[in-house]
């Protein structure tokens, strides 16, 4: 029994080592086989990739997060329409007016979300960031 568990542990260790070699090995091989330098003309090998142009400013700036609220609203209504599909399937199977009223109530409650967002000023396109770093 003791032997067996030790053997299992060895298997785990072997697979772990195998995985490690599989992951790290290519890096080491590439490091050994790749040229240690690259020919260059203007000493710009390490420059950030900017299609050959000089990079302007810092990449770590704060972006305006205006659109994401708008996108969230869209998402809410995309899902809303998803819920309307089954309703459309069973519509008028029993009693059309009741179905209609139910849909009106459902969409009406969801529409309150728009009213809320409207009130909060999501639909006025204003930058909500104040300062760059």
């Amino acid at each position: 029994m003791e032997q067996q568990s030790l053997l299992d542990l060895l298997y785990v260790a072997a697979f772990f080592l195998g995985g490690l070699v599989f992951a790290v090995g290519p890096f080491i091989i590439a490091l050994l086989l790749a040229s240690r330098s690259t020919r260059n003309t203007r000493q710009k090998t390490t420059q950030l990739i900017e299609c050959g142009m000089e990079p302007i400013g810092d990449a770590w700036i704060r972006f305006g997060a205006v659109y994401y609220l708008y996108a969230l609203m869209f998402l809410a209504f995309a899902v809303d329409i998803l819920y309307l599909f089954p309703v459309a399937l069973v519509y008028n199977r029993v009693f059309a007016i009741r179905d209609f009223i139910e849909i009106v109530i459902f969409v009406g409650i969801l529409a309150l979300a728009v009213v809320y967002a409207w009130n909060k000023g999501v639909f006025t396109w204003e930058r909500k960031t104040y300062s760059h770093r």
Partner: protein
Amino acid sequence: MGTQNLQPPVVQFAQLDKLLAIGRANSLWPMTFGLACCAIEMMATGASRFDLARFGAEVFRPSPRQCDVMIVAGTISKKMAPAVETLYDQMPEPKWVIAMGNCAISGGPFVFDGQYGIVEGAEKLFPVDVFIPGCPPRPEALIEGILELEEKVTGSRRFPRVEVA
């Protein structure tokens, strides 16, 4: 000028190098990079009619870090030269350069006494491996250039040479 002498890799085996050369030659990755009208022919070469994919060189990379071949397709204006040189710098070894068209070879029709705007040939900027004449060269010519480059890399030609009647 920067460095033009290359530090070789830590590990080198002749046979392995040959194997790697075959792999590299048959999957050359050019850079998505066009300077002038020759680029239109380059796009045609990559598209379905001439189908550069048959020769393994269709993967046009938008980043110089992933490229093997820089096809200088078009006139290099002096304004654009620093950008082209930077792109060459940013390509990792091994890298090759194809000068496509007369402008990239020597300045083409823009060379005259007192011209001030054009770099007269890509080899004024960096070493060039294959020159493809033409104004612009036909897509077949670019394919032949790629095949010439393959031959240069491996030392043997994989596809039959077209005999001119």
